[in-house]
């Protein structure tokens, strides 16, 4: 087992890894920017090295400085957390070539899954459903019609050079297809100088469901069931939960098994999340693999009781998983709200600054993973998350009640947080019923 681990991150995830290290008897080495000198991850680590000034590019993204800190800190391994360099295959490679184990997949697996086309091909190869589409450009209307009939309406026409919705059209039926194709081509040509378009099945009001997987270097691959992250704002997850509130048991089994096939097929070790969109008929389609630990991993930890960070460390050290698939039982319902220093009344504008007072929620079924404290200044340089409020209760109804009372307890002064916004979401009948999808927040809270 490792003696010393460097954590190439900050904030709550740095704390999370420090906690796991401490419980395992491993010394933790933190790195920090000058803006984070008073940060809790610096205080709680066994050692800490300043790697640069406030801006991420000058510190947390500075590969040479982080490796230098790993050298002077004399560590065995590096945990990248999430964000920053976590999915940077080059960093992964440099860690290993500098003699430090990278706590994550191999650079090869990371790179392959990081490329959308490669990942899609791997999914198809491993019989993991992908969103059906033309698999290439559409040359003429006849092929478009044939394809659309095959994959079923509605279909989405996307510009191959596209982005930002430009050159994108939805066709509800055959009568609309020709016009939509024409419009999309014209728009794409005008916008990108490239009129090439392709077809994809249009999944309306999809749910976002992802599966937590972990694999060791002995060929064992286990899933830890799913998380539903359909409460999103501009593709940013706000609330995550497990189990997914409206997924039939047989689909749950199927999506988890698909995720395991995907990871096994990618020759992947360590923790990964396989993300899917799920339509109203509970068909699921592969989107991408996140080749790292995720923000919302505690939701899975609560229902399974498994410490994912410790398991990551074990696996990276070459040990086999401490469980097999049959040992993993998901119990009860867990929810996580990401508490951000943002002002929901001002379009979620960041609200960095000094926290004057804070009361951390407690009590039965409540977990608050946070690095902030009264007197701490939330720096403006990094993401605005100040903590993750997680609850675990026997039923989803109870979990919602517990989350609401915990949000009410989370009193923060000095900065504005999203706690109140979460409380509004939790009361919404659509969320309570669990029938919400990824368009829910924008439809119900951000219109007008």
């Amino acid at each position, binding site marked *: 087992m490792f003696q010393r681990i460097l954590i190439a991150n900050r904030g709550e995830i740095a704390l999370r890894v420090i906690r796991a290290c401490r419980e395992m008897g491993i*010394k933790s080495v*933190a790195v920090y920017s*000058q803006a984070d*000198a*008073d940060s809790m991850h*610096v*205080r*709680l*680590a*066994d*050692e*800490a*090295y*300043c*790697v*640069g*000034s406030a801006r991420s590019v000058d*510190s947390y993204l500075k590969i*040479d*400085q982080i*490796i*230098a*800190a790993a*050298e*002077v*800190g004399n560590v065995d391994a590096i945990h990248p957390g999430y964000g920053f360099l976590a999915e940077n295959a080059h960093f992964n490679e440099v860690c290993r070539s*500098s003699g430090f184990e990278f706590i994550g997949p191999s650079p090869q697996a990371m790179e392959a899954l990081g490329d959308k086309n490669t990942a899609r091909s791997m999914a198809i190869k491993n019989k993991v459903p992908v969103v059906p589409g033309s698999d290439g450009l559409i040359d003429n209307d006849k092929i478009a019609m044939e394809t659309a009939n095959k994959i079923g309406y509605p279909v989405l026409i996307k510009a191959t050079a596209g982005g930002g919705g430009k050159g994108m059209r939805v066709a509800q039926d055959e009568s609309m297809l020709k016009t939509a194709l024409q419009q999309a081509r014209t728009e794409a040509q005008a916008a990108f100088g490239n009129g090439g378009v392709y077809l994809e099945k249009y999944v309306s009001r999809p749910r976002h469901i992802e599966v937590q997987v972990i694999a060791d270097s002995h060929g064992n691959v286990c899933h830890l069931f799913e998380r539903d992250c359909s409460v999103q704002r501009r593709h940013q997850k706000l609330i995550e939960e497990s189990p997914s509130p409206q997924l039939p048991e047989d689909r749950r089994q199927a999506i988890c098994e698909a995720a395991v096939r995907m990871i096994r097929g990618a020759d992947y070790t360590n923790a990964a999340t396989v993300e899917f969109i799920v339509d109203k008929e509970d068909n699921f389609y592969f989107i991408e693999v996140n080749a790292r630990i995720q923000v919302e991993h505690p939701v899975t930890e609560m229902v399974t009781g498994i410490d994912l960070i410790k398991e990551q460390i074990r696996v990276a050290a070459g040990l086999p998983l401490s469980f097999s698939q049959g040992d993993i039982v998901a119990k009860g319902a867990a929810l996580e709200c990401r508490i951000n220093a943002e002002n929901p009344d001002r379009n979620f504008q960041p609200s960095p600054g000094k926290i004057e007072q804070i009361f951390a929620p407690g009590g039965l079924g409540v977990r608050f993973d946070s690095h902030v404290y009264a*007197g701490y200044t939330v720096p403006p340089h990094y993401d605005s998350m100040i903590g993750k409020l997680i609850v675990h209760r026997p039923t989803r109804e109870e979990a919602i009640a517990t989350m609401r009372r915990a949000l009410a307890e989370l009193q923060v002064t000095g900065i504005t947080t999203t706690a109140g916004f979460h409380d509004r979401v939790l009361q919404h009948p659509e969320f309570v019923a669990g029938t919400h999808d990824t368009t829910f927040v924008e439809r119900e809270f951000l219109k007008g």
Partner: protein
Amino acid sequence: MTDRTDGDKRMSKGGKPTGDVFDIERIRQIVELMEEHELSEVDLQQGDDKIRLARGSAAPLYMQAPVAHAAPMAAAAAPPPSGAANAASAGTFTINAPMVGTFYGRANPDSEPFVKVGSIVTEDTVICIVEAMKVFNEIPAECRGKIVEVLVGDQQPVDFGKPLFRVEKLA
């Protein structure tokens, strides 16, 4: 209960009594001392007696070290002052490490140090080497002045912003 049995409203442990905490004259003396030496805070405590005085923008209170087995921060990990000027020693400033690595004061074990106390440096004077990832980076002074103190030992790990040398400004 206002009078805990343990609360000994005692005189100072040695001979002389601590006297009245609220004595204005004594407070005035402390305040003058603070002003004279630009102290931002004075916190005196003896038994239950306490005098705390703060000037200017209330200095931040740092948390004490975590309990028991919580690890103290590594020497190298002390939050470094970012700039150069340090009020503690008027007329001097520090040259800080521009990177993480291992400090070398001389090119090789048999060489003379790049600089010593008393050395005059200019912008381009190499003052030390910081080794990281097997690269030996020569660090220039980037300022003019006289070295008055070497703040780190040879082969000591340094991190970004760590003060390496104290330099006196030359007129």
